[in-house]
């Protein structure tokens, strides 16, 4: 019955001739003799060079299908719900804020890639190597250099600066309950100020609120709508939560060539949160060998050196050479705030609820 109806509907669509042809060259799932197929599930921010993927496809006579599946949270939920009948062979894009959930769900299988040797130990969070680090980036405060010069105000250098009277009404942050940089910045304050003692992260946020911090839904709204630099003048907040890589990206995507970045990141000790993105092989992968080859490929030089200018993250492989714009304009915070990834999963709801209570209600 079902089959008949599906055929009828498909037929109807095909008949009308307007349907996007349901069968496209990229999605022939039947394993035919010929190229091997690899499906990679990832988030919407995934991007890489055409030639990079082509290099892999050529080397392994394979066809790579990239399934973009919403943001990292949506993607992981899809992967968990489809665990019994996985949508893909490889999952890329789980970061340390949701790593624990991915590992507990048991959807990834261990793979001890030989390339792990080239990756610093500080990035390897899962000692069973179910999740292998691919890249990392730091969520930091960014400020508009020109605005501070015009207003003759000292540049911010630490989280503590934001609660000073001079900085009243200057900062915009993202909602920790719905935005990934928003959550990362909350984690930075938790790592920096701690949960106990006489000045906790909640005390800090209460002070920030008193200093007129603006909380908005997501990065796009904060950066383009509220940040003074982002949209070229509509916003009125010169400090925004963004990434340490945003200043070089501003240079890279500028309309006119810059001598120096128009914005800068606050990278003082404990003022940033480091996001690490992982790749893993999904349990039930159809072609395990090819999946392993892909993981090795992602950790190898070709792919790693292509990461910065496509995803604006830093390659995990320490041998990868950075592009000029990153080498010249990017600053890597030496001591990001420390929050254990297992603690994040265990406390996420409590932290976010407490934060919401203090900052928004």
């Amino acid at each position: 019955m079902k089959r008949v109806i599906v055929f009828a509907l498909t037929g109807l669509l095909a008949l009308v001739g307007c349907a996007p042809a349901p069968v496209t060259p990229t999605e022939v799932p039947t394993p035919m003799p010929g190229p091997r197929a690899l499906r990679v599930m990832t988030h919407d921010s995934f991007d890489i060079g055409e030639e990079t993927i082509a290099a892999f496809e050529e080397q392994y006579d394979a066809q790579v299908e990239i399934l973009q599946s919403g943001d990292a949270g949506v993607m992981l939920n899809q992967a968990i719900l489809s665990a019994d009948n996985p949508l893909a062979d490889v999952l890329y894009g789980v970061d340390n804020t949701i790593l624990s959930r991915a590992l507990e769900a048991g959807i990834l299988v261990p793979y001890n890639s030989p390339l792990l040797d080239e990756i610093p130990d500080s990035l390897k969070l899962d000692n069973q190597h179910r999740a292998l680090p691919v890249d990392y980036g730091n969520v930091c405060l960014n400020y508009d250099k020109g605005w501070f010069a015009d207003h003759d105000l000292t540049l911010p250098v630490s989280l503590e600066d934001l609660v000073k009277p001079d900085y009243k009404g200057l900062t915009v942050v993202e909602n920790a309950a719905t935005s990934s940089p928003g959550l990362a910045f909350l984690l930075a304050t938790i790592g920096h100020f701690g949960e106990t003692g006489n000045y906790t992260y909640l005390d800090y946020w209460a002070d920030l609120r008193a200093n007129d911090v603006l909380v908005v839904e997501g990065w796009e709204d904060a950066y383009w709508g509220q940040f003074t630099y982002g949209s070229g003048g509509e916003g009125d907040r010169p400090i925004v939560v963004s990434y340490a890589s945003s200043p070089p990206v501003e240079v890279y995507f500028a309309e006119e060539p810059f001598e120096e970045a128009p914005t800068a990141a606050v990278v003082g000790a404990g003022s940033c949160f480091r996001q690490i993105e992982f790749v893993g092989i999904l349990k039930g992968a159809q072609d395990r060998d090819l999946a392993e080859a892909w993981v090795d490929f992602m950790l190898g030089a070709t792919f790693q050196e292509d990461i910065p200018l496509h995803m604006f993250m830093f390659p995990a492989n320490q041998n990868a050479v950075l592009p000029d714009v990153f080498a010249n304009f990017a600053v890597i915070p030496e001591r990001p705030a420390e929050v254990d990834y297992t603690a994040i999963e265990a406390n996420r709801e409590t932290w976010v609820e407490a934060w919401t209570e203090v900052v928004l209600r």
Partner: protein
Amino acid sequence: MGRGVDRGGAALRDYKRSKMQDAGHLLHLASCLLPLVFLLLFYFYPLASILTLSFAPAGSLSLAPLEKLFRTPYYLHTLWFTTWQAALSTLLTVGLALPGAYVFARYDFFGKSLVQALTTVPFVLPTIVVALAFTALLGPRGMLNVGLMSLLGLDRPPLNFQYTLGVILLAHVFYNYTLILRIVGTYWANLDPRLEEAARMLGANRWQALREVTLPLLTPAIGAASLLTFIFCFTSFGVILVLGGPRFATIEVEIYRQTIQYLNLPLAAALSVIQIIFTFALMAAYTRLQARPLDLRPRQVTQRRPRNRREWLVIGANVGLMLALLIAPLVALVERSLTLPAVNGVSLAFYRQLFENPRGSAFYVPPMAAVRNSVEFALATMVLSVTLGLMAAAVLDARRETRFLGRLLDPIFMLPLGTSAVTLGLGYIVALDEPPLNLRTSPLLIVLAHTLVALPFVVRSVLPALRSIQPHLRETAALLGATPYRVWREVDLPIVARAILVGAVFAFTISMGEFGATSLIARPERPTMPIAIYRFLGRPGASNYGQALAMSTLLMLVCTASFLAIERFRVGEVGEF
């Protein structure tokens, strides 16, 4: 004529009528079945799967999450806020758009179809883009505040719209104005103006005639359009999140948070169920508002060019409102896409950059490919939802025997609109994973998901018109020997053709602008225009911002052109009202 002949004629009539009814029943059955099967497969089945998984993860049913909802003040508060903001938004939208509908129904003037097309453009714009347009107009450094500051010599922006209830309401009017304008306006255009004139002749003043004669006749159309508006605002997501800011939350926002942030499926499912029950109850109450058969007049008779200054004033005021409320934000976007802040001049640089792929990205979207993908999805959605929607409307229109069925089915056809995209999206992942329904990564799934949302719009647009047809017209046609199909084609179609086009425009629009559900479906490369816009907005840099706005402008252009084209569409030589 003798009595015998007359009796023979009656027998023949009875025979023909019963034949017609048989054929009608068969047709009914078929057209009843197809939309139902569609809902069963692509709505109820995935929904039931995800709800089962959520409420009974270990096989035993637990309704504790539902209980928890009703014992937590926060969720009760959220439900209350969701309801009243939707009610207020609907009232405002109807209040502002009804005069516009009147003007569009009764007068014919230069530029009318272009203005009408432009008022529908907001419907397709991603919320974040609308938020940026609003900031450009109303933000602390927006045109309005800067203008007022220099005018009044102030040193602080006098108006603060951002992250207030006011901006939520404004955005809901911005998005939904077109629903009232099109659905009510189209229906109103066929109302006989002589009814109102008669009332005036009998001594009623303009206001009394409107209240006592016209508004009651318009009730079915106003009801349908308000209902759609209400459900849209009730399940509002992007507007609340982005424009309202984190202090406001609707049920839909909570469903998203609970699902994505905490993977708390039981709680999310409980919230979804509440939302669905609410939609169903509302719909069931609404179905009581049945349209009555009316004497309809072709629009050539009801519409005329404005004659005096008062009429021009009414038209000017309404078109002015549309320009200020709906079109000014669009113009602000276009203006920004053409301006290079660095050199302070007009330039097509961002449009040129759309066609370049300097880094050789595998995910570069050639603008024409995005346009093609969007339009293909939208056309497929339009065709599928108009086909299914007409069938569904025919079932719901049944007057006698199957009336009970119609009453029951009507709310059911509306349910997808009141269902969380997050919940349904995950339902697809869980349910549609085995052949022959292995559609999880098929582009067809996007069309099906869009159709689900578009179907209620087609049904609601067509049904009031269908119900206004005098039964004697059909009976006469049948009596004269027309087959049921011919009756439909010669009687029904000319009367409902306009309404079908309205439904088609909305189906097309929904698919063009839809992002929420699309982003929840794992999809191979087939990027649409909204997806391309989000991709540009996802990274810093002036040229990305400019390209996002350029792509938004392209989206607006494609939509305006499509609306104008759809409205000009005619089926063969079928005459039209």
